[in-house]
């Protein structure tokens, strides 16, 4: 009620009417890459982008999630107001929380199994990681508070934190997008200057600092709400393209020196002094820039109406990207399971490849199944109010 007059007073920016399939495509690919990266020692890791530059699939995932969240909830906020849109965003955060706790349960089962069956005096020190099993009360409570997050379970808590703060941010983005983005950038800078982060259990801080990573999420949302059009002039500039390609090549050259030690002598001391460490926790500005360069080049060469987006070859990635929360959780679970199989049968490169491919197939099949369910539910005569696109967007996850 309160928002209605404001809404009529200032015309809100148009939100692109049709869903941009590129988002689903790249989010689907990002989900596959995250799955592959989560199986340690997997030979297929060599194909994931983190080996070819500073940023990795996490940046893609968070950016696109911000974009789709603004796309879905921005429309809801415009059409139905702040309260309804906020309620839906918070419900989404709750769903992700439940999914996270579900994954945590599976993880605990795996750990407990390893603790009960695996022993080797060589690893007496490493096995101390299982100490938390001695105090399940504390551990589980800390997990419920999102403070205890085992390896590879950091993305969903980040996402929950981002969504919890999203309603006021979206409200601001719809009215003063430049101001909102500047505010987000300010929080990022302040987080760097004052070491802001959330505490973790048993000690330390969140692996993905929400105060830093929110910049990417908000930037994605800003792009969805008209920012992309505003940037189109910049993106068309040949200088920007040249700069982006140059930076991507530079990042590639630097990553090569991480894997081929002898190349390190070609990196001047002043450069490595300035550049390292490239901090993932706080979304290092070099990583952010790498993502921007990657996005600039991608947008240039993959237009919105790219015919291949309709071709069957890309459908598997697109369908995974359309159900990202489910597929992300499935990917984390499959990575646990795959890792488990590899360690039970000491899998070589062949087994690792087979497990990776099988995992991706399961992800695609599940995504297709979810699409099918949505389709039959949408056609059912008893189905209630039609909510276009919101479901398709996976609620923006």
């Amino acid at each position, binding site marked *: 009620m309160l928002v209605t007059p404001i809404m009529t007073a200032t015309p809100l920016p148009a939100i692109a009417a049709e869903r941009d399939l590129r988002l689903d495509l790249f989010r689907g690919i990002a989900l596959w890459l995250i799955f592959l990266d989560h199986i*340690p*020692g997997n030979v297929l890791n060599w194909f994931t982008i983190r080996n070819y530059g500073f940023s990795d699939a996490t940046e893609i995932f968070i950016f696109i999630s911000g974009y789709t969240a603004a796309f879905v909830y921005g429309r809801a906020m415009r059409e139905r107001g702040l309260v309804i849109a906020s309620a839906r965003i918070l419900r989404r955060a709750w769903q992700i929380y439940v999914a996270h706790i579900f994954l945590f349960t599976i993880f605990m089962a795996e*750990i407990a199994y*390893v603790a009960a*069956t*695996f*022993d*080797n*005096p*060589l*690893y*007496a*020190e*490493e*096995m*101390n*990681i*299982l100490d938390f099993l001695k105090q399940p009360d504390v551990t589980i409570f800390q997990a419920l508070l999102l403070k205890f997050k085992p*390896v*590879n379970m950091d993305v969903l808590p980040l996402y929950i934190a981002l969504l919890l703060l999203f309603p006021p941010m979206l409200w601001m983005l719809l009215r003063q997008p*430049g101001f909102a983005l500047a505010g987000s950038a300010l929080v990022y*800078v302040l987080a*760097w200057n004052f070491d802001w982060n959330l505490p*973790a259990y*048993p*000690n*330390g*801080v969140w692996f993905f600092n929400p105060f830093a990573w929110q910049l990417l999420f908000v930037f994605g949302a800003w792009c969805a709400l008209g*920012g992309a059009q*505003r*940037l*189109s*002039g*910049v993106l068309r*500039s040949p*200088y*920007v393209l040249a*700069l982006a390609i140059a930076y991507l090549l530079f990042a590639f050259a630097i990553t090569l020196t991480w894997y081929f*030690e002898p190349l*390190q*002598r070609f990196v001047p001391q002043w450069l*490595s*002094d*300035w*550049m*390292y*460490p490239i*901090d993932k*926790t706080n979304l*290092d*500005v*070099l990583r*952010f*820039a790498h993502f921007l360069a990657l996005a600039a080049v991608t947008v240039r060469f993959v237009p919105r109406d790219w015919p291949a987006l309709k071709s069957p070859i890309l459908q598997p990635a697109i369908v995974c990207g359309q159900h990202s929360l489910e597929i992300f959780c499935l990917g984390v679970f499959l*990575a*646990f399971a795959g890792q488990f199989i590899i*360690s*039970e049968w*000491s899998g*070589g490169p062949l087994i690792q490849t087979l497990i990776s491919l099988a995992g991706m197939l399961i992800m695609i099949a599940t995504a297709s199944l979810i699409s099918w369910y949505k389709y039959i539910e949408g056609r059912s005569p008893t189905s209630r109010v039609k909510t276009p696109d919101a479901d398709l967007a996976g609620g923006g996850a």
Partner: protein
Amino acid sequence: MKLAVAILAATVLVGASAAAVFGGAARADPPPEECDVPQSFLESDVDLTRVTDAVKTKHRLDISVVGSGSSSINGPEGPHFAYPARLEDALKHQLAGVDLKITPHVQPRETTATMASGLDKILSDDKPSLVIWQAGTSDALSGVEPEDFRTSLDQGVAEIQAANADVILMNMQYSPRTESMLDVSAYADVMRWVAQQHGALLFDRLAIMHYWNDAGTFDLYTATKKYDMARRVHECIGRALASQIINSAHLDAVRMQTTR
């Protein structure tokens, strides 16, 4: 600083584009394993000049080993089978005529910050020409922030070098069974970086054990209560360390002289 440059770059970019809005062998141990390590794991541009100097001019070599649990083995005669003792044995064979002394300072669960604070005593007691510093595992276990880990390591390495000793940083063990629970990669990156910054040597135990596992030298997934495998791995680490020291201190020539 990095942020400032990036902000500057962004400002320039935005300005340029008008459309923009935003800117163990001695005591009846099993015969030595075939656990050769490819030279590329042990080669480096870094020279252990203080080691060379000590061996060539004083014919003695004092080494301190600082580390946590994975520098030791439990069980009967653990210290004899752990890599510091195996290194001593391997070096004695190769550096005949050199007065060799290796002093381990191994404390289970000790984080790098604690180890660093104990360095001054170790340096003044042992007066080593070389400190082998095994770190990272206990920090990863207790969730020390990589940035704090870096600071401790950085100060520690500087302190050792100021005391006129060379440094070898040894990173974590490759432990495939705990890999999905304990992510050590961030700490391994820090160690590589600190070694590079200070011109210290890195003994990449993580990569070497990974190589052994892939090559089938050891099946590191094995569950066992016996000490055999732990002892064999430590034997092999001791030997790989010895050849890294011999290489980087250019002591092949010395050995020739002394054996002649």
